[in-house]
């Protein structure tokens, strides 16, 4: 059975040493959030994840959710764990204190989320969806809707969902058919079928607040005629208590490859009472608000799974004796040497580690900017942070989940045959990770978002904060740095040059032929992410070098060694990616589709 230990020291390294914790505290509303408080919060959250959520991960997967006559039962132990989770306040970390939340930075929220996802990703879906619905409602709901629904969602007594997908429309939401007919009292009657609704029905909460994309009778066709509605499972009485059933029912639950303890539901709306959220026909705008944070959240799911898979792979590589080190036995008194002596096992472990720690740095970087974008008072700082988050959201979502599939598969590989056996729990991470590349916009869609929307927006303005920061850093460091750092600086310069070249190529070709930009998108997103991680690894290596001789020698040496591994063995992928990008769309498009 896999184990999990919250990576507190690694989290601290990123939020305290890589990024300046005092500048976060300088943002309005975060004055109290010093590093002592953050440490305590992470420690307690970690303890909860390790001892309450993680022990239910494998049993939840084995048992799955049950569906009986419209009712969904979550696996054994989930209900008690959910109650404890809410009572301990872990569902209300970042929520607005007006509605009972703690109003803490997203930076802390995301670190807590990582631990939840490592411990039990399926469990995390239930409060995670509530948070998504909370975000949309808090931003676009009327005061009446907010005071009616948000406090109970913050305590976790009620949960939330996002109802987008219908049987005939997933990625292309312009095809939504669910109808919303206006009533004389200002409400709407919502009718239609939604599928793939995570946490759509469960036995954890007293009420479920669905956010539903639907179309009013005279709405324009396509994406411009979609509105967002809030539709509770049970109507809410004037005194705030749960009232009559509201024509919302669960038709069935899906039998899935992974996240089996998360109920994925077909939800039928049968003239259910709903209320408009935001402006009529501007539902997609509100939905994107929800989706953007959800996309970052999915990236974090990938990170969490990568971390837990790595931890268990390391434990196995230490324990399992198999074969001998090629030069001389490592443990001559034992029948064989531990797995980690073998170069190929080391390659796998270091690949897992370098992606996971690099992605953690990226996630916290974006979270920091999200806090700046929400709270900064200087309009320039706010705009630049906004741009950065918008640019990085598809990268966090797609790259971190692609990594999760790679990393969790390496985890299985290190276990050999035992990795393929359910009992060891390593294959569950692969199955759970697989959905992260698909939902909240497939990774292909993320790549299109990056090249089609983010790159082009305001003539490339979104790219600037990142490009400027990296080039300034390189310029500054190339002048005076140690030899160890110079090697990495050279590596990053080369990779950064490739990113600039690819960006120019896509901007130019894409103007002439949209297929060109789309054909390059996935490779470009990966190239971009590898450069971003290269920049972060370089800065982490710089810190590790500076801290040599100050204690924790092993910890900092490991950071430096992982950085060197990243530069030697992972960052060079950028060369191949650039070649693929520059080859253009021809080989994709010339192929006769009948020959597929």
């Amino acid at each position, binding site marked *: 059975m896999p184990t999990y230990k919250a990576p*507190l*020291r690694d989290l601290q390294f990123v939020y305290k040493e890589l990024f300046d914790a005092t500048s976060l505290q300088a943002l309005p509303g975060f004055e*109290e959030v010093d590093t*002592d*408080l953050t*440490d*305590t*919060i992470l420690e*307690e*959250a970690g*303890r*909860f994840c390790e001892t*309450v959520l993680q022990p239910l991960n494998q049993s939840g997967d084995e048992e799955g959710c049950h569906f009986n006559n419209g009712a969904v039962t979550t696996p054994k132990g989930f209900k008690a764990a959910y109650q*404890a989770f809410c*009572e*301990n*306040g*872990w569902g*209300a*970390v970042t929520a607005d204190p007006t509605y009972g939340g*703690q109003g803490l930075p997203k930076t802390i929220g995301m670190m807590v989320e990582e631990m939840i996802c490592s411990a039990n990703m399926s469990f995390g879906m239930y409060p995670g969806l509530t948070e998504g619905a909370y975000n949309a409602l808090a931003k676009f709901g009327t005061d009446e809707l907010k005071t009616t629904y948000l406090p109970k969602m913050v305590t976790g007594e009620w949960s939330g969902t996002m109802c987008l997908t219908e049987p005939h429309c997933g990625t292309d939401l312009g095809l939504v058919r669910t109808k919303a007919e206006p009533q004389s009292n200002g409400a709407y009657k919502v009718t239609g079928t939604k599928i793939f609704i995570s946490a759509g029905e469960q036995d954890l909460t007293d009420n479920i607040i669905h956010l539903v994309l639907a179309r009013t009778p005279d709405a324009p066709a396509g994406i411009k005629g979609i509105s967002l509605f809030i539709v509770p499972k049970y109507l809410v009485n004037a005194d705030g208590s749960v009232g009559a059933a509201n024509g919302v029912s669960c038709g069935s639950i899906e039998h899935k490859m992974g996240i089996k303890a998360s109920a994925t539901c077909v939800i039928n709306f049968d003239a259910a009472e709903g209320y408009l959220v935001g402006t009529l026909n501007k539902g997609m705008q509100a939905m994107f608000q929800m989706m953007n944070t959800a996309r970052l959240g999915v990236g974090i799911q990938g990170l969490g799974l990568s971390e837990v898979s790595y931890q268990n792979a390391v434990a196995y590589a230490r324990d399992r004796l198999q074969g001998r080190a090629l030069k001389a036995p490592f443990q001559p*008194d034992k029948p064989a040497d531990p797995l980690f002596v073998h170069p190929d096992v080391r390659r796998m472990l270091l690949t897992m580690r370098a992606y996971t720690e690099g992605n953690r740095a990226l996630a916290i970087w974006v979270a920091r900017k999200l806090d700046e974008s929400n709270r900064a008072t200087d309009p320039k700082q706010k705009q630049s942070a906004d741009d950065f988050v918008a640019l990085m959201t598809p990268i966090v979502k797609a790259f971190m989940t692609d990594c999760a599939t790679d990393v969790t598969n390496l985890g299985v590989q290190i276990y050999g045959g035992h990795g393929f056996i359910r009992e060891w729990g390593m294959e569950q991470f692969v199955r759970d990770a697989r959905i992260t590349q698909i939902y909240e916009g497939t990774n292909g869609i993320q790549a299109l978002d990056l090249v089609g929307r983010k790159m082009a927006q305001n003539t490339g303005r979104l790219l600037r904060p990142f490009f400027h920061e990296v080039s300034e850093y390189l310029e500054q460091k190339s002048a005076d740095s140690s030899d160890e750092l110079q090697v990495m600086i050279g590596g990053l310069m080369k990779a950064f040059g490739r990113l600039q070249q690819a960006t120019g190529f896509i901007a130019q070709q894409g103007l002439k032929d949209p297929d060109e930009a789309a054909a390059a998108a996935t490779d470009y997103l990966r190239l971009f992410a590898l450069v971003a991680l290269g920049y972060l690894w370089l800065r982490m290596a710089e810190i590790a070098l500076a801290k040599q001789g100050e*204690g*924790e020698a092993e*910890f900092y040496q490991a950071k430096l060694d992982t950085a060197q591994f990243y530069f030697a063995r992972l960052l060079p992928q950028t060369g191949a990616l650039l070649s693929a990008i520059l080859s253009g769309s021809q080989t994709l498009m010339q192929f006769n589709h009948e020959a597929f």
Partner: protein
Amino acid sequence: MKIVVAIKRVIDYSVKVRVKSDQSNVDLANVKMALNPFCEIAVEEAVRLKEAGKATEIVVVTIGPKAAQDQIRAAMAMGADRGIWVETVDTELDALTVAKLLAKVVQNEQPQLVLLGKQAIDSDNNQTGQMLAALLDYPQATFASKVVIEGNEAVVTREIDGGLQTLGLTLPAIVTTDLRLNEPRYVKLPDIMKAKKKTLDATTPEALGVSLQKSIKLLKVEAPAERQGGIKVESVDALIDCLKNKARVI
């Protein structure tokens, strides 16, 4: 009823303890520190007594460097009302010195009940509570597995070698807590936030009128010898021979 709980910052129970290369002590540099588990049980018991309406105020006290404030905050997040930090540079005070400092704090605070962990997991001395009771001339019950407050009396069940013993103590009294007394709660996020705003008073041994004398000298710390792998023997006779002549246990 006011309760004083004495707590100690110790190396985290999950950390693999290492000895300094010069064998002068355990290596505590950059090691994760935490609230001593037995102290955590003492805090939990105090909070439960308060929740049950038996206690009105919980004061936690610790002795140590500034970092020990973290443990006071942790106890406050569990539900203690305020904290007293006795600042010392030395983290290796003798149990008697600690008991003297605590005695002063108790005299100042005048609680009805003083709770301590039965021992700290770093030095495992199991002395402070007993010494404190002697200094104050209070009744004591050590190794508590159940504490009931009835009027002016504490009825304490303690774990002893022969089983369980129940004592009635007239308050004020000293109780040291054993492992099975309770299971400490998970700390709630809102309580972590509230703990930041609770009062934490600092004092010093000088202000308390206690001089930090050392009566115990630490000579050397050695890691336990690494366990050697076992051997297999061919027969029962060979086993007996080994036990007699090699292991010399029979």
